[in-house]
């Protein structure tokens, strides 16, 4: 369930960036940077969630 909320959150942020660009509140390079951060967050976040799910978090 945590991963569903995390995924939805990142997708909403990405879509919001596109809307902000469409409304001229972001320029192209700001949009590109935002999307890159979301992309890294998406794959990094799921990798961490997957690690925690498999019990990696208990090692400490």
């Amino acid at each position, binding site marked *: 369930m945590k991963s569903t909320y995390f*995924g939805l959150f*990142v*997708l909403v942020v*990405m*879509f919001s*960036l*596109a*809307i902000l*660009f*469409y409304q001229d509140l972001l320029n*192209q*390079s700001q*949009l*590109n*940077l935002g*999307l*890159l951060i*979301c*992309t890294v967050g*998406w*794959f990094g976040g*799921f990798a961490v969630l997957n690690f925690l799910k498999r019990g990696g978090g208990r090692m400490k």
Partner: protein
Amino acid sequence: MENNAILQEPSRKGEFERQPVPPYHFKDWRKFLGMYAGEHAAGTEFVIGPLFLTAGVSAFDLIVGLLVGNFLAVLTWRYITTPIATADRLTLYYKLEKIAGRKLVIGYNLANGLLFCFLAGAMITVSATAVGIPFDMPMPALTDTVPTSISWVLVVLGVGAVISVVAAKGYDAVSKFSNIAAPWMVMVFLIAGIVAAKRLGVTSFSDLWAVWGTGSEPFPGQIKFTFWHVMFFAWFCNAAMHLGMSDLSVLRYANKNTIGWTTAAGMYVGHFMAWISACLMFALYLRSPEAAAIFAGGGVPPVAPGPLAYEVVGIAGLICVVVAGWTTANPTIYRAGLAFQAIFPKSSTVKVTLVTGGIATIAGLFPAFAMKLLDFVAVYGFILAPIGAVIFFEYYFSAKLGLSKNYAQVKGTSFNVAVLAAWLISMVVFYAWSLYQDVFLSFFTLPAWVACGLLFLLFSKILQKK
């Protein structure tokens, strides 16, 4: 085109390969909705969208043609494929083996495996256009059929080698990765469309309509697309899956027939939104000084998904092109490997997958497979769809005509000549007709399917009388 990993690979684990799926393994609509939505947002969508534009399509023909064609595809999945899938709950291969015999299934596997290789080659080409950007690699033009530079060859070989090794050694990891990446890819497609529309000055629906206007002359080497071309292409680009019954392997897990409607998620996300987004990206590129210079020099601008996506959404777009090409080429190479392994059962899966990946990589070197993707996808559906007619007509009409069901199994034969003759005659006749009369092949997918079914019943009647 396709990228399903959730349910598509039961044969890998030998799960219910030769028996009906038991009720406690049935899945509900949620599993199918996500799978179909992700499956049809693949690397090839980045090429198919722009190719519509190169075919000089008009706004009405594109948008309404896609709406209608995709709806017809959903209806076909719902009313042709799903009822048979949930009635027998067998894979296409096992069902076909019962009707046509083991040796004919090998022939089908060979055709299937080769077509999968070429499709995977197009996906490698798509990924290579993104990987090549940092190396300043010249992109292949729309009319290019053979490798155009040494850097192109090196990048494609590199991408192909990575994809092939991963498909052979780490299939499960990539399968999981592609499930994670699918929603993100769909969002990148959507955002790319929004950004391209904004940069094209689209502020209303009429502006969007004006991007294509009343169409244009097709680019050199392309045929002019009308409403009918778009509609039939959208309907039959996945003909192998619905009319051809390949999706029996997936839909046999459905807990009820209404699950066939979930294919709409794939059609309207991948084959509507993603195609139109990619089309808008290319429309933006065509207005660039670079494209204008190419036109002025009498050349044809390249359809290169990497630079298109990079221009619109930056590095995230590049990553999307690589991931979309990679995650779709991976299961495609794996499935082609499985098809070939059925022909050479004693060889190891790793070896066969590596060889298959090698064939796909060689195909990827030739830009023709990607640049002529509309034609190739039409051929792919046309060749494999008629086999589904054998299953459909046998299911609904064999009892009425007094024919034996599952003839090969009942008779103990490994080769049902009625199936082969029906498949070959319908294919050869309509393909020759298309070739000599210069008719778009997707127009003949349905006639060839119906002809194959009728011929199968006729030949079966004659054969079984003897």
